[in-house]
């Protein structure tokens, strides 16, 4: 704790009044509440109406220095050395930087939270909901933080101290300083609606800009998913698709356009996404995912995979690879008016093989029964996939792990069913029986494959 002041011995009335108010607040348990302040015989008539005489009138505040001195007398301070040692304790205090943005950008205390003094009152409750959290608030020299500490106490924060000497003294001691990675002004503008959400904010946006999402397919599902992920500022997107834009795609595959007919989908998507957001780096893989290339593509390093494939061979390949690479998969599928979304997070929740250990036999593969999909359906399902991918990248909310969301466009209803891990799962179960990639043969060619073959290149799929 900072200086435990005793009553001043001299005849300094101001000092005495300061101490009196301070000691009184301590006696009341650190709350700057509405309790009446005991009368001070030196300055305050015991008969005065106390409700009209707040404690500040104890003093004759004639200027900033007086006010600062008074406020400093009312709060607790901590020095740089003690703060430094607290940071190594098992429960370090929250460091709160109340300086202006340009000061913050030149360096701050490690892991500090930044709320400029001017918006402290309006923003602190959402950023620091716990009122009993131990907080060390600092500015450049300890003045603004003193006022901030007082404000925080008034807001009900019970364990607040102001860093005496502030950031200047911290640096003078040679203690560690973190240089923040920050958004450029145009990025701050572009992502302003994200920055306004506490769950995203600048740190979240920076996280998105550093995250990497691999999209399997630039078709019906990959179109809205890639557009929203690029718009959101996901720093790197990978697109695996070996198909070219076809007229029949344009009813739903909104990342492409009439002018792109005949162009490779991966390149067409890359052009659209680059026009939407130059912050995003797009890697294209104009190849069909197979056992031969899946490791090479996944080794590029991805945080999340968005699976928008339309065929079983790719689904199973993506699943097995994601389990072995430990990458969560946002799975989406669509059929006519209905869609499904879930998140397969390896070892945290079930994988696709926990649900369906093996693909159905070709003659019974239900997805081959009949085609057709309402154009907007992949828009809904692909957007839900983007939503899940963003949540996973941000570490926010409850992703659809262990839950399958079913969407029926005709009745406009969502239904959820529970998915659980299968201890006997051949890939992520207790004793896996599948340990290398299987290239299943495409089912929907109108001819049943005689057998499962490895490394088959004759299948060609179009992503949904």
């Amino acid at each position: 704790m900072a200086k435990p002041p005793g009553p001043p011995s001299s005849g300094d009335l101001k000092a005495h009044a300061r101490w009196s108010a301070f000691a009184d607040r301590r006696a009341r348990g650190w709350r700057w509440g509405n309790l009446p302040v005991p009368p001070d015989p030196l300055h305050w008539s015991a008969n005065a109406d106390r409700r009209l005489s707040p404690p500040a009138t104890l003093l004759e505040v004639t200027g900033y220095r007086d006010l600062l001195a008074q406020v400093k007398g009312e709060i607790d301070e901590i020095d740089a050395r003690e703060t430094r040692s607290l940071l190594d304790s098992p429960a370090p205090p929250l460091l709160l930087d109340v300086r202006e943005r340009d000061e913050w950008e030149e360096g701050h205390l490690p892991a500090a939270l930044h709320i400029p003094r001017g918006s402290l009152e309006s923003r602190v409750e959402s950023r620091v909901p716990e009122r009993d959290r131990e907080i060390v608030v600092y500015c450049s020299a300890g003045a603004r933080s003193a006022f901030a500490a007082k404000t925080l106490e008034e807001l009900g924060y019970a364990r607040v101290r102001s860093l005496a000497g502030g950031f200047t003294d911290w640096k003078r001691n040679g203690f560690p300083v973190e240089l923040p990675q920050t958004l450029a002004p145009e990025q701050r503008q572009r992502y302003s609606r994200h920055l306004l959400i506490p769950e995203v904010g600048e740190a979240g946006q920076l996280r998105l800009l550093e995250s990497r999402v691999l999209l399997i397919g630039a078709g019906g599902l990959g179109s809205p998913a890639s557009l929203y992920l690029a718009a959101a500022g996901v720093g790197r997107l990978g697109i695996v698709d070996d198909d070219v834009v076809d007229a029949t795609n344009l009813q739903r595959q909104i990342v492409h356009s009439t002018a792109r007919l005949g162009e490779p989908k991966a390149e067409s998507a890359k052009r659209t996404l680059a026009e939407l957001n130059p912050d995003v780096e797009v890697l294209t893989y104009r190849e069909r995912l197979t056992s031969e290339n899946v490791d090479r593509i996944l080794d590029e390093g991805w945080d999340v995979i968005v699976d928008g494939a339309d065929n079983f061979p790719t689904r199973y390949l993506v699943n097995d690879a994601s389990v072995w690479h430990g990458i969560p998969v946002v799975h989406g599928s669509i059929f006519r008016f209905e869609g499904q979304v879930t998140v397969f997070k390896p070892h945290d929740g079930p994988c696709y093989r926990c649900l369906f250990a093996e693909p159905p036999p070709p003659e019974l593969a239900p997805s081959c029964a009949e085609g057709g999909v309402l154009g907007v359906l992949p828009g809904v399902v692909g957007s839900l996939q983007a939503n899940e991918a963003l949540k996973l990248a941000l570490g926010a909310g409850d992703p659809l792990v262990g839950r399958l969301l079913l969407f029926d466009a005709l009745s406009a209803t969502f239904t959820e069913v529970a998915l659980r891990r299968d201890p006997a799962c051949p890939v992520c179960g207790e004793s896996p029986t599948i340990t290398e990639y299987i290239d299943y043969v495409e089912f929907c060619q109108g001819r049943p494959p005689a057998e499962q073959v490895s490394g088959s290149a004759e299948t060609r799929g179009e992503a949904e």
Partner: protein
Amino acid sequence: MSVVRIPPTLRSETGGEKQVVADGGTVREVIVDLAERFPSLGTQILEDGDLAPFVNVYVEGEDVRTLEGLDTEVDEAATVILLPAMAGGSPAERAPHLAQEEVVQAAETAPHCPREKVGPSLRSGGNRTLRPAR
């Protein structure tokens, strides 16, 4: 009578019905009753009298494999959901049930919309409604 929700990929076996009713106190009885009412559905979802491995059954949102399997009790008011593996939207040109001419024709008459053309709810003029005549 329990309500059984039929997945879109199996609706051709129930005459297009999205949900049907079936009798039975357990999942097994419900499935058997369902197979009697819709024999072709039975051949799709049953394998040697057991549930095919690529079809999952949910009772009140829970996978019966995590409950009592086919012996899971089914309440009168319960909803049973059949959920087969679904790969995605299957392109119409690869659908074996469609005559090739039908797909080609659809592609020629409305080059952007063959997938909507083949859905039964849209097939009869549905896409014309989406694209007003000029």
